[in-house]
C-alpha cells in the first residue's frame, strides 16, 4: 500500500496513530509517518478521523457506497 501524508497539512494531533488498528503510523517530529504501510488493510478509519484531511492511500480497493444519497448531496453542494 502506498500511503502519503501531506506534511504541510498534518497538524500532528496523532489521531491516526491512535486509531489505526494495524499501527501503520508513528508521529515523528510532530508529523505522522506511515512506518508500516504494508500492514494497512484499507479500512480508511484514518481518513475519517484526520481533521486535516492530510492522508492519501494509493492502490486501495474502494468499497461500494450505495448509501450516498445523491439528491441530498446535490442539494448540499448548492449551499456549501
Amino acid at each position: 500500500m502506498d500511503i502519503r501524508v501531506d506534511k504541510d497539512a498534518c497538524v500532528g494531533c496523532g489521531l491516526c496513530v491512535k486509531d489505526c488498528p494495524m499501527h501503520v503510523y508513528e508521529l515523528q517530529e510532530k508529523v505522522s509517518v506511515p512506518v508500516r504501510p504494508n500492514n494497512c488493510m484499507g479500512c480508511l478509519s484514518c481518513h475519517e478521523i484526520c481533521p486535516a484531511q492530510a492522508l492519501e492511500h494509493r492502490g486501495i480497493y474502494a468499497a461500494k457506497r450505495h448509501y450516498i444519497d445523491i439528491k441530498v448531496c446535490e442539494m448540499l453542494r448548492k449551499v456549501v
Partner: protein
Amino acid sequence: MSAGYIDELHEAFHSDLVYRPEEIPLECSPRPKEMEQTLHGVMKLNGLVIRSLEEIAGRGANAVTYRAGKKFGHEVAKYFQKREDVEGALHELSDLLRGQYSFEVWKPEDKETFIIEENGETFIYLVFHDCIVRQTLRRNGLDQGGPLCQTLFGYVVGAIEEITGRKAKLEIVHTGPNACLKKLVLK
C-alpha cells in the same frame, strides 16, 4: 380528491406495454440504476428495524440477529459442496456472498502464513470490503459492530460450519468506513 388527480394517477400506472409470461427472466426490471430510491428505502427500513430491536431487546438484540444469520448461513450453504479444507470453504463462501459482500484473506506483514496460530487459537483474518450491512448502517447513521453486523457474523459462521462440518467463530477486530477486519476462529 379531484378527478384531475385521479386521472393523473391512472396515467402514471398505464402503459402500452405488451406483457407476456416468461419462464426464465433474464433481466430485472426496473434497471438497477432506477432502483436507487428502492435501495435507499430498504436500507432505511432495515436501519429502523434494527434500531427498534435494540431499543426493545437491549443487548439481547445481538443474540437474536446472530441466530437469525446463523440459521440463514446453514440454510443457504446446505446446497453447496461439502469440503474439509478451510481454503476451499472460503472459496465457496465468497461465491455465496457475491454481490452483497466481498472479502479477502489477509495477514499482517510479520505473519508467514494466512492460517495463524496464536495463544492456542487457530484463526484466519478476513478483510470485508463490500458489505451491504455497512452501507445500511452508514445510511442510517448507526454504529458498526451492532446487531445488524451480527447477522453477517452468524451468516458466515453458519455457512462455514455447514461447508466444513467444523465449529467456527467470527470476531470483529476493527470496523472502518471502507473495510472491516474480522478474525475467523477455527475450532
